[in-house]
């Protein structure tokens, strides 16, 4: 049921962005599509299904006998599920790779959340000479990437004698300019009165940050943390350069080497499904933060 204006909307009902009124849980919105929107709906649905289908196919084949993946015509049927591919996967290096990936991703997450939020706090709430130039210097790094600095970074890490160790994997990923930027943007909106009150009560600088700023900034810290985790979990180039031995590989690099040496598609697809699973779980659990995080830096207001 649609009302012409928000005033007419009963209090217990919801109003959406277009001032349209609807009742909570009223169908899956599809019922309220009208006219030309059906065309959009169908086109978008086909596009989305086409994009998601390959992932579905990957998961399906990883639970089928190894030869099923290379069958023509493609085997899309349900049934005949087996765990053979995963058993073979578990017999390999997958646990080592997974724990390496977890170490890297969690370190990236913690580093970004702690170190970058401290920097963001300084940029947002402290006054000191050179603030502007330091901030722009850090933000300008966003334009470069491992791609550009990989050669000298590799040689630097090699000269430090830590190539193929956790140090090599971790040192370059603990900070990210985007995390500094996002936390700074958010912390600027924290009212000065709150900090003033803390100071009046005699809070030390660190306590003000830890007991006031950090709890208030949880929404942005969650975003920074999730992005930090996913970025490092997905990263390929740096772990590829920084590690040599099988037991230092991350999942991405291990998977790539598996793909390049293997004709066993079933095994490779099981590995891909395994590597993708944490991303999907995080995505489903923290969808809101993804949407926010992606738009926070790009869209004003």
């Amino acid at each position, binding site marked *: 049921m649609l009302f012409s204006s928000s005033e007419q909307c009963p209090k217990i009902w919801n109003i959406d*962005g277009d001032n*349209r009124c609807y009742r909570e849980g009223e169908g*899956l*919105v599809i019922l309220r*599509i009208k006219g*030309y929107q059906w065309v*959009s*709906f169908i086109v*978008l649905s086909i*596009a*989305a299904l086409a994009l998601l289908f390959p992932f579905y*196919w*990957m998961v399906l084949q990883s639970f089928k006998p190894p030869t099923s*993946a*290379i069958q*023509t015509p493609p085997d899309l049927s349900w049934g005949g599920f087996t765990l053979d591919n995963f058993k073979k996967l578990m017999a390999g290096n997958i646990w080592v790779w997974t724990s390496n990936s977890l170490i890297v991703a969690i370190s990236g997450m913690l580093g970004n959340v702690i*170190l970058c939020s*401290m920097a963001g*706090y*300084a*940029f947002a709430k*402290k006054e*000191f000479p050179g*603030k502007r130039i*330091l901030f722009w210097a850090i933000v*300008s*790094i966003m*334009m*470069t990437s491992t*791609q*550009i*600095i*990989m*050669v*000298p970074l590799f*040689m*630097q890490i090699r000269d430090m004698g830590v190539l193929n160790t956790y140090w090599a994997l971790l*040192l370059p990923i603990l*900070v990210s300019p985007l995390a500094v930027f996002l936390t700074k943007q958010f912390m600027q909106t924290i009212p000065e009165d709150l900090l003033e009150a803390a100071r009046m009560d005699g809070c030390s*600088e660190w306590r003000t940050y830890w007991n006031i700023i950090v709890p208030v900034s949880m929404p942005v810290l969650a975003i920074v943390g999730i992005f930090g985790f996913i970025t490092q979990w997905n990263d*390929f*180039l740096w772990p590829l*350069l920084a590690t040599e031995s099988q037991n230092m590989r991350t999942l*991405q690099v291990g998977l*790539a080497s598996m*793909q390049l040496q293997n004709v066993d598609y079933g095994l*490779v*697809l099981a590995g*891909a499904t395994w*590597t*993708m699973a944490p*991303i999907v779980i995080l*995505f489903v659990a923290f*969808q809101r933060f993804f*949407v926010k995080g*992606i*738009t926070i830096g*790009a*869209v*004003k207001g």
Partner: protein
Amino acid sequence: MYRIRKALPGYLFLLPACLMFAGFMFLPIFKGLQLSFQKWTLNGYEWVGFSNYNQVFGDSFFWKSLWITAVFTVITVVAGLVLSLIAAFMIDPFQQRMQGVFKSAFYLPSVAPIVIVSIIWLWLYHPSFGLLNYLLEFVGVSPVLWLGDPKIALFSIILMTVAVSQGANILILVTSLGGIPKDYQEAARIDGANLWQEMIKIKLPMLKPTLTYLIVVNTVGSFQVFAPIYMLTAGGPNRSTTTIGFLIYENAFKKFDFGVASAQAVILLVIVMIIAIFQFRTMSEDLEY
């Protein structure tokens, strides 16, 4: 003395992050600049002036890879943004929850690791048991050597990149469209504008700042493409997919010619910086960071 004491907490909070940035971002950039003028000999590194640069500029492979990178970038960015815009315009009129469904559906593929996406697409593109050739056969078209034909390989990589990486673009555009005040839309309707005019004449111009931002971010990203090339074709066949990013990797980690690789990286950095400066110029009035 008082001023230093007042500034001290700020510096202390910055110190850890700044040390990491300086050590692992800025230092490598300067070291790369230095390396680009050096050559590795038996006695260690030796200054060779511009000889690395001369070698790079005289190398036809370098110019070829620059051209390939430009083609890759222009097509992926333009096609990607056109498709994202169409999708965003289609998603915008829906209500919140339906918008959310589509936003997630398009965003999920773009958070998937590129290694996994590449593995899947290698399989879709497989000449004998790939799904794409099966579909082509189904409609009576002869199979295509997606990654094996020098004329087609680059476009296969472009197709994959465009298909899977529009999530963030779509999300940002939908959010921007949602931020356009409804008054404009109503005023246009009263003046008798149809849906098409409303999109082209009213909404598109208001998206300009967002589009500029996306164009630059996408261009800078595309210019450095590496992982899909590494996974799908390793620069081949016949070097038809060797982008500048992959060429640097090859020179440094296959031929161990770090001097030449650094010179190429410096050139890439300059190109990316020019694009970035272009961004700050055109966006300065919209920039509130």
